């Protein structure tokens, strides 16, 4: 991967993706070999929106590469609450760190940050836009189970505002994947995502119900339907109930169906699915560590081509 930043999944070629995933596999196989690789370097965690797992996952990944991390803290207690622009904030933090992980409520925030600073920027979610590092760990999880070609995937839930969905759908166009999108009419894929999928000639189909296609799927990727997307709470409960799966739903599925979820889930996947062989969402979350280590390693290597890493690793 020859990229300075990771802003959107649409920037990634098949080779880029496979290179990071190969490295993630190497990291997972021999984490000790990477333990001091970026000793002395600092990763800045800039979360303008609440996050638990993404923030901790990057924090952990960085520390396992020997890095230190600095955290902007909650937005309420930072300079942002004094009215500082994102442009200024990232320019200042650039001087404190060797790379920057950014989550922000506005679409396009990471693109702006990438234009303002020279250190690598990783988009950890920009509004309803993109979440490409999640996609890399999603792809890693899929690849370990099924491979990424000749794949049939169902992506279900909030497809309109779901940034993990937007990134995943874009990245899958680099592979031989049939994509089924299952959602209520009001939460279908946005025009911009649909545009990109059509541009690539991707094979996509849209559905309002899961049942008719569940037996065709290798992977079912479930996302949360958020209450705040609906003006009426009753409507939310009705719709959310229709896109909830449990162990019985999966009776009709192939034995090797993999069920994924970017988490946190609320009740769209019933706890009884956890005990089935289909459930993979906790491993998926754990895969965030080797994948984000591989990603940070790659971006830092690109940013420091002379290579002053302490440890030589056969890659």
């Amino acid at each position, binding site marked *: 991967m020859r990229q300075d930043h990771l802003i959107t999944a649409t920037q990634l070629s098949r080779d880029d993706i496979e290179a990071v995933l190969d490295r993630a596999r190497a990291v997972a196989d021999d984490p000790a070999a990477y333990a001091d690789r970026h000793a002395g370097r600092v990763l800045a965690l800039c979360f303008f929106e609440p996050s638990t797992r993404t923030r901790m996952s990057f924090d952990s990944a960085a520390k396992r590469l020997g890095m230190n991390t600095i955290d902007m803290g909650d937005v309420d207690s930072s300079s942002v609450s004094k009215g500082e622009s994102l442009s200024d904030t990232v320019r200042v933090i650039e001087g404190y760190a060797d790379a920057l992980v950014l989550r922000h409520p*506005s*679409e396009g*925030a990471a693109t*702006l940050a990438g234009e303002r600073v020279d250190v690598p920027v990783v988009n950890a979610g920009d509004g309803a836009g993109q979440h490409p590092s999640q996609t890399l760990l999603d792809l890693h999880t899929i690849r370990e189970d099924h491979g990424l070609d000749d794949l049939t995937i169902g992506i279900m839930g909030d497809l309109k505002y779901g940034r993990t969905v937007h990134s995943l759908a874009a990245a899958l166009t680099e592979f031989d994947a049939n994509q089924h999108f299952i959602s209520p009419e009001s939460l279908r894929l946005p*025009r911009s995502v649909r*545009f990109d999928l059509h541009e690539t000639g991707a094979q996509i189909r849209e559905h309002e119900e899961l049942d008719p296609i569940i037996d065709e799927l290798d992977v079912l990727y479930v996302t949360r339907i958020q209450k705040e997307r609906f003006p009426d709470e009753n409507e939310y409960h009705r719709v959310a109930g229709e896109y909830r799966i449990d162990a019985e739903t999966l009776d009709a599925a192939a034995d090797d169906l993999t069920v994924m979820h970017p988490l946190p889930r609320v009740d769209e996947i019933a706890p009884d699915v956890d005990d089935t062989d289909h459930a993979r969402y906790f491993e998926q979350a754990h895969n965030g560590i080797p994948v984000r280590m591989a990603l940070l390693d790659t971006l830092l290597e690109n940013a420091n081509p002379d290579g002053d890493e302490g440890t030589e690793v056969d890659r």
Partner: protein
Amino acid sequence: MSEHELRVSKIRDGTVIDHVEAGQALNVLAILGIDGAEGFGVSVGMNVPSDRLGRKDIVKVEDRELSQSEVDVLSLIAPEATINIVRDFEVVEKNRVTRPEGVTGVLSCPNRNCITNADEPIETRFDVVADGVRCDYCATILRSDIAEHIDV
């Protein structure tokens, strides 16, 4: 001919934007940032019969020439337009507009949640795609409603 001249008189020096899609003349003025307060002489013809377009609008602005970014956005709402530079009542230059690859700083993004609408020191930037423009920051696509998002 004489009826035409009665509607929109000739100008001595300035720009005539001809073959504008009927109904877009006021948007053309908006792109040029002209609201009358600048003191330029401005003539507007709307729904004028045209061989090429059926009906067209014409905008004549005295003592004013167009910048490239103005022409770029103009091309999106008036792709058939011709731009005539007039000096001493004569057309000295006549150009068709061409579709640009992108437009910078002229359109506002319709997505209220886009970072370009968040009080950042930032110019909007749109790529021109098949049948519209697309925000470089949030990827929102604008099609027939481009004229509503001219921000000048």
